[in-house]
Structures are given as C-alpha cells and as structure tokens.
C-alpha cells in the first residue's frame, strides 16, 4: 500500500505543515519583534512608561498615559455612535426592508466596510471638522455639566473666541471612526439576525406579538452573540484605526479629557506622526507604544472570539 502516492502524500503533509508554521511564525513573531525593538526604551523608562503623559523620548520623558486613555476614549465615542446605528441598520435589513432591497443593502454595507480609512479621513478633515462646530458648541454649552462634555474655558456667547477650539477634538475623531466601523459591526450583526429561525418568528407572531415584540423576544436574543461579537470587532478596529484619526486630530501630549475640545491623540496616529523624525531611541519608544496597542487589541480580540465561539455553539444546539 505504501507506494509512490504515500511518498507524495508525505511531501504534501510536510509542505502544508510548513505553510502552517510559516503563518504561525509571522503572526507569532510580531509581538516578539515589537518587544525586542522596544525593550531599550522600556528598560530606560521602566514603570514610568505607564504613568508619564508627555512624549519626549529624547529627553527620556515619555509614556503612554496620554495616548492609551485617549485611544480608548476615541474608541468609546465611536462605539457609542456606531453600535445603535449599526443595530438599527442591521435590524432594518433583516426585518423591515422589502425583500428586493435587501440584497442591494447587504452589498452596499459590505462594500462600505471595504472603503479605505484614508477616504474617511479626507471626509473627516475637509467636511466634518468645520461642519461639526455648531453641534460641539451646543453640546458643550448646554450639556457641559455632563462628565467629559464640558470645556472649562469656552464661552459660546463670546464672539471674539475662536471657533477652532471645537475642531479636531476627540469627539470629531470618534465620529469619523464610528463611520469607519459601522459597516463592519452592521455586517456581523445582520448575519446573526438572519440566523433567527423562521419558526420562532412565526410562533411569536402567532402568539400575537407585534413586529417589535417579535424582534425583542426572538431576533435580539438569537442575535445577542453576534451583537456582542460585532461590537468587540468594531472596538478592535477603532482602537487600531490610524489614518482616519491622524487626518482629523490636533495632537496633544497631556491627558485632555474634554472630548469636545480641540486636541486629541492615540497610539496608532502617534506612531504615524513621530516615526519619520524619530531618533533610534525615539523609534524604540514608538515600538514600545506599538506593543501596548498590540496587547490592548489582543485583549479585545480574545474577548470577542470567546464570546462569538460561545454563542455560536449555543445556537447550533438550539436551532
């Protein structure tokens, strides 16, 4: 039985294993390389790396206490805008849209998920940034008592005050990123809403539920895993978005939590901003920042895949 075919199969098996190991090697060494290149800076700064707000690597005064919280803030703003919108669109596509429209809508959303971030960045800087000023002024002057929304030295009634204080803020960056991630989230959610079985839907209707009642009791429970998974996926993309944020932001290097106020920062745009003019030590510091981003997204991704895996197996046993 062990003929030429067996030999060929062994070669086949070995080359497959080689490919698998190559993939593993590339993916696995990303973190290692970031660590090795960043270790010089990390060793120099020690724990202060986590608590320093400034980014002046050449005077050995640098840390991620500005960029990591601001990255999370931008992602949070993005998710707050994107998730309700994406849920609405996904529910519209799966429950309300006429059947002829449905396929076209699915295609449009999937296409939008492939639109490059740099295009969103262009739109954000040249359209959204000047357009959003009235909204930002309104929010800060009327809802300024709400945490994060106030701007302590802004006065909407002072005609001499420049309006640029409302531009290029964490809020603007968050809105642009929200548009970047909405199609991705929507795609995942829609797929999981489609999974809700027809039998249960009609059962709910037969028991007298309205459409909204049916959605609340059948579609949303069935799609819960997809909703959480999609949100986490979007969050992961929002944390790593570089160009869309870079295009609209005015970089700051102190932790500035007034989200409507001009000036923001994030890890990925910081790297894009600083790598070109960086000294070898500055580059090492940027690698260390990249490593921090790497861990942050890994955390979110593992959370997402754990949630998706759990709910998927649940659906199989029930459907």
């Amino acid at each position, binding site marked *: 039985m062990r003929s030429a075919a067996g030999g*060929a199969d062994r070669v086949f098996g070995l080359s*497959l294993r080689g490919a*698998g*190991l*190559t*993939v*593993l090697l*590339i*993916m696995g*060494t*990303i973190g290692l*390389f*970031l660590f090795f290149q960043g270790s010089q800076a990390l060793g120099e700064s020690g724990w202060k790396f986590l608590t320093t707000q400034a980014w002046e690597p050449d005077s050995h005064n640098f840390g991620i206490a500005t960029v990591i919280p601001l990255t999370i803030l931008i992602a949070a703003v993005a998710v707050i805008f994107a998730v309700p919108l*994406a*849920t*609405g*669109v996904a*529910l*519209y596509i799966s429950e*309300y849209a006429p059947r002829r429209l449905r396929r076209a*809508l699915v295609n*449009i959303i999937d*296409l939008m998920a492939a*639109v*490059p*971030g*740099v*295009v969103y960045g*262009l*739109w954000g800087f*040249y359209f959204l940034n000047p357009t959003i000023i*009235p909204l930002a002024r309104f929010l800060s002057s009327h809802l300024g008592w709400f945490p994060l929304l106030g701007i302590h030295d802004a006065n909407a009634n002072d005609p001499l005050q420049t309006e640029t204080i409302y531009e290029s803020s964490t809020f603007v960056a968050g809105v642009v990123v929200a*548009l970047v991630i909405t*199609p991705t989230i*929507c795609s995942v959610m829609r797929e999981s809403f489609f999974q809700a*079985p027809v*039998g*249960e839907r009609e*059962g709910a209707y037969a028991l007298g539920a*309205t*459409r*909204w009642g049916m959605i609340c*009791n059948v579609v949303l429970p*069935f799609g*819960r895993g997809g909703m959480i998974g999609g949100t986490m*996926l979007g969050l*992961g993309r929002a944390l790593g978005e*570089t*160009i869309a944020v870079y295009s609209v932001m005015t970089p700051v290097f102190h932790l500035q939590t007034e989200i409507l106020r001009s000036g923001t920062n994030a890890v990925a745009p910081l*790297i894009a901003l600083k790598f070109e003019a960086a000294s070898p030590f500055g580059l090492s510091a940027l*690698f260390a920042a*990249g490593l921090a981003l*790497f861990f942050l*997204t890994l955390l979110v*991704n593992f959370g*997402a895949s754990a949630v998706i895996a759990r*709910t998927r197996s649940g*659906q199989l046993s*029930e*459907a």
Partner: protein
Amino acid sequence: MTTTFPPRTHAVLDGTADPDTPLAAEPRRSTSTRGLSDHIALAGAAVAALSLAALLVTRMIPAANLGGFVVIAYSLFLVLYGVLVALEHDRRKVRDRLASVAMHSAAVVTLVALSFVVVFTFWRGHQALVHLNFFTHDLQLTGPLDPLTSGGALHAEVGTLIEITIALLIVVPLGLAGAVYLNEATGRLVKFVRTVVEAMTALPAILAGLFILASVILTLGLVKSGLAAALAVCVMMLPIIVRASDVVLRLVPGSLREASLALGAPRWRTAWHVVLPTARSGLTTAVLLATARGIGETSPVLITAGYGASLNLDPTKGPMVSLPLLTFVLSHSPEHTMVIRAFGAGATLLALVFVLFALARVFGGRAAGELSPRAQRSRARQSQEDYNRFIDRDHARRLGSSYAT
C-alpha cells in the same frame, strides 16, 4: 448551553421541525397589520412636525440652524406620531410603530452618511479626474502652484499595482496553503495556529508596518522601498485570507472528500482536485476582498514605503508611492490644487476598491460545490473524457490479456 429564546416555543421546534431542513426555505407570510389610518397618521405627523418646527425655528429660536431644525422636527415627529397612534391603539402598538420609525431612520442616516463619504470624495476630486494627465503623469515636475493640467498620480497607480502584485504572489499561495493546513491536518498545533490567526485578524494595520520596519528594515537591512511595503501589506492581509479561506474550506462537504479518498486518491490529489476546486468561488471572494483591504490600507505603507514624487518601477530601490499614501500625503498639503489631487487619488483608489468588490460578487458568492453553467459544462466534458479513457483502457487491457493467454 444558554437558552436564548422564549421557552414556550420549544414545543414547536422539538415536535415538528426537522433540524436538517433549512428553516429559511419556508414561505414567509405577510404579517402586515397596517391599514389606511396608519398611513394617514404617519403623513399627518410628518406634516405637523415640519410645520411646527418651521414655526419654532423662524419665530422663537432664531439661533437654530439647519441641523437644529432637523433635530427639532424629528423629535416633534416622534412625539406627534406616538400620540396619533395612541389615539387608536394600545401601548404595545405605539412602541412597535415608534421602533419601526427608529429603524427606518437609522438605516437612512447610515446609508446617507456612508454614501456621502463616497460622493464627497468623487465630487471634490472630479476637477483632477477630468484631466487625462492625472492618469499619465507623475508629480516629479509639478510645483506646488502648478495647475491641475500638470502632473498626476501615475507613480502612485503603478506603485499600487506593483506592491499589490508582489503581496498577492506571496500571500495567496501561503494563505491558501495555510487554510488547507487548518482543514486537512489534525492535531493540537492546528488549533493553536487557528487561534493565533483569528487573534491576528484585527491586528492594527500600523503594527504590520512596524513589524516589517523592525524585522526586515532594521534587522535585515533592507531599505524603505516598494518591496518592504509589499511585505507589510502581506503581513496585514495574511490573517484575513487564511481566516476567510478557512471558513470557506470548512463548507466543502465531507462526503466529497471521503468519496475521493475511497476511490484511492492520495490526500494531495484530494486537496488539489476536489477540495480546492469545490471551494473555488468562495476562495476567489476571500482573496479579492482581502486585496481590497490590502490595497486601501495606508498605515503599513506609510511606515515602510517612503515617499517620492516620481515614477519608480524598481520595488527593491527607492521610495515607492501607492494611492492611499499619495492621498494621505497630498491631503496635508496647504496648496489647494494638491488637496484636489489628494481627492482625485482617493477617488481613484475608491474606484479600484469598487471594481475589486464587483469582481468578488461576480466570480464569488456561490456556495461550495455550486457551479456556474460554464463550469458545469466543462465538468461534464471532463467526465466524458474520463469515461472514454476508461473504455479505451479496458479495451486495451482486454486485448493484452487475450494475447497473454
């Protein structure tokens, strides 16, 4: 397992529904309960809200602008519509109607916003796009004040094509082999590789660039070039392709694989002649969509490609610009014409992504094993050939054996 739907519907499922039949195939009944009065309520609420909002904005809140008008009108509409429905129906219906309005508006807002991003890019870029030189010249001889009739994005277009070609040459064989490995091999290592690949799918693109900077440029000593950029794009695309192909390959029916093995085909023949062709459509989609992602990502090429204004055909030497990078760099220029060129380059990139997406929908989108008419004909021809071959072989064998005896 957690129960995620109302327990009282269990009986329906367990009793009658056969778990093997696809439930979606059942014909859907029309469940619409809306009559004339609902439509009148909707229209009436809309008209009332618009007029009230117009009154408020023009007479009472002069500071409000168009955005304020829209917000006021919309909230008034929700309230009025709710009241109108409540006149006839109970609270459950009111909630249902308001939810329906909310879903429709979410869809409209999102689609309008997303299409606006695309239209805005083309609209701002059209001044650059109408000049043919935008596609046939580079920016080498174009000064910051030159009009749009001089210079273009040729270097970026060529750079994009060269980089994505190199990236695809590496990533398609490697990615597909990796996906086949995940499906055909067994063992703990497979699970580990799959977990790592899944975790890397959402790797921030800039980290792919940093990785190439750390490994290839700083450690191996390659200069910033098209090749380095292509490698960075590779790293970014690899997990996407492996993951998508893995999902597609998992859909190939096990019976096909078993039939092939039972006929005595070795495993490599089974993979090459049965598994991969069966999943061809899905694999094409996976590769094309990953290409669309790879072509548009700016941050890995920003770090690894360098920026130059002239056409560079050599990926191993000198900076090589691609469309997203050119868009990015030009959009930060203070010159008005350069910004228009940035929009032009962005629009070109968008068009490229759209073409790739359309190709993915034309060539892909079929389930595993489902054939297009052309593929079906060629399959029939092939099996006819096989049939003839077997007949001939039998014939020859019979002749041979008759000689032997």
